[in-house]
Each structure stands twice: as structure tokens, then as C-alpha cells.
């Protein structure tokens, strides 16, 4: 193989390795209700038990009352749980390495999340605002595309 082709091939493979793609949320109600306050985090980013816990405790959602009518909650819960990373996905990606007996509530506290992102300086973190502001760096995060851009 000529060196130029090898270099291009290497670039392509390394770019693929840095791109993390998951299906974006397809359910309209989930998009609207979750998206009223924050980025609509794709269901694959947490295991089903996490979505179960989160949607069961919306009256205190990280310190905020995010309560909804029960029928609406039921629909959102069903969608997120059936599309969770360990149900619809292969259990890899961001939820890899989550102990079975643990129910993480924050995507930013997943072992893979902290491993990939490391520690940002307080200055950088101030610019980003909150850990859930994925699109600050991952421009197409809402579409489930977490490229290293």
C-alpha cells in the first residue's frame, strides 16, 4: 500500500473511532416535555433502570419539580425504557462498565463519560455551563451524533 493511502485509511478509521452515534429521541412527547428544560438526551445514553428511576421521580428532578400528568409520564417512561442502551442498544457505548447493581441518574457520572471527557478546568467548565450542555462541543448532539468536533 502506498503511504498516502495508508495515511488516508488511518485518518478515516481514527475519525470513526472518535464518532459516537446513537439514535435521537423519536417520540414527539418525549422530545417536547424533556426538551422544555434541557437537551433531549438520547435513550441509549442510560440503562432502562435509570430511565425508570428518573421518570418515577419527576416531582424532584435534580431539585426541580418536573411533574407531568401520569399518562404523559407513562408514555415517556415506556419510550425511554424500551430504547435504553441496554435494551435497544448492545450495552456498549456510554453505558459500558456501569455495575448491574447501580442505577446512575446522571449521564455525566457514567464511568465511560468521565473516562472520555476527563476533567475540564474550572475556566472551561464555566464556559460550558453545565455538563449536560453536550452541544457546546458536540454540535449535532441533539441528533445523537457525538463526534469529536
Amino acid at each position, binding site marked *: 500500500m502506498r503511504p498516502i493511502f495508508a495515511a488516508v485509511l488511518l485518518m478515516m478509521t481514527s475519525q470513526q473511532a472518535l464518532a459516537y452515534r446513537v439514535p435521537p429521541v423519536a417520540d414527539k412527547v418525549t422530545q417536547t416535555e424533556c426538551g*422544555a*428544560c*434541557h*437537551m433531549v438526551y438520547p435513550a441509549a445514553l442510560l440503562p432502562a433502570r435509570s430511565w425508570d428511576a428518573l421518570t418515577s421521580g419527576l416531582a424532584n428532578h435534580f*431539585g*426541580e*419539580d418536573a*411533574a407531568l400528568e401520569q399518562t404523559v409520564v407513562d408514555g415517556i417512561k415506556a419510550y425511554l425504557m424500551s430504547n435504553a442502551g441496554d435494551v435497544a442498544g448492545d450495552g456498549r457505548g456510554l453505558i459500558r462498565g456501569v455495575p448491574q447493581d447501580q442505577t446512575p441518574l446522571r449521564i455525566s457520572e457514567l464511568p465511560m463519560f468521565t473516562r472520555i471527557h476527563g476533567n475540564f478546568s474550572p475556566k472551561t467548565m464555566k464556559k460550558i455551563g*453545565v455538563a449536560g*450542555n453536550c452541544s457546546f462541543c458536540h454540535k449535532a448532539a441533539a441528533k445523537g451524533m457525538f463526534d469529536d468536533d
Partner: protein
Amino acid sequence: MSLKVWIVTGAFIGGLAMPVLAAAGQDAVLALYKTQAIADDSAFAGFSADRGKAFYASSSTGGSPDTPSCSSCHTASPLKAGMTRAGKAIEPMAVSVSPARFTDAAKTEKWFGRNCKTVLGRACSVQEKGDFITYLNGL
């Protein structure tokens, strides 16, 4: 009159009519709260923009420590865009900037329900809700 004049005149009247239509939406929601307020208290003396302004700016220790006031997320000026704690932009609360505010009774109740509990640790009274909307409707 030429067609051009008709179009210009029509656009002018349309432009004048729009704020009137928007106000009608807030009036409907306010009328609902007024009915409730009278039912709760026969001595109800109306809603007050000044009380609403004070309420918006006030701080509370009854709710979440992260959000002691309306202004925690909506900023000190309702004319400006706010931001949720999760980093999402919130359209300004002032009706003059966001004409759709308080035109949907169910949506209005939903957000009073959530945010009063988050900020105050309790439900808002009908008086507080009506004062709040009256203030933001007049800005």
C-alpha cells in the same frame, strides 16, 4: 385605491390588530384566575402589576436552594431571555417580547405548578398568579 395602497393599508391594520389579538389570549387566562379569586374570596380587589413585580423579584428559602427566585432562571429583567439550570434558553417572560405567554391556560397552570413548588416550596395562590401575569402583560 390602487392594489399597492390596499396591501399597505391591510398590512397596517393587520399590524395594529395583532397585539389586540395577543392581549385577548392573556385576558382569557386572567379572567379564569379572576373567577377563581372571587370564588376564594368575595372581597377580592383585583390583580396588581406592582405586587406581581415584587413577587417576581422576591427571594424565598422555601424551595430549592438553587432557585430562590423567579429571576434565578428568568433573569432580573423579564424582557430578557433566561436560561434553565440545564443550560437551555428560556424565551423572555414579558408578553410584549413573547406574545404567546399566558395564552394557554393548561400550559400556564403546568408551569406555575412546577415552578412555584421549585422556587417557593408550595403552590402559588390565585392572587399571586394573577398579579404575576398582570405585571408581565403590562411590560
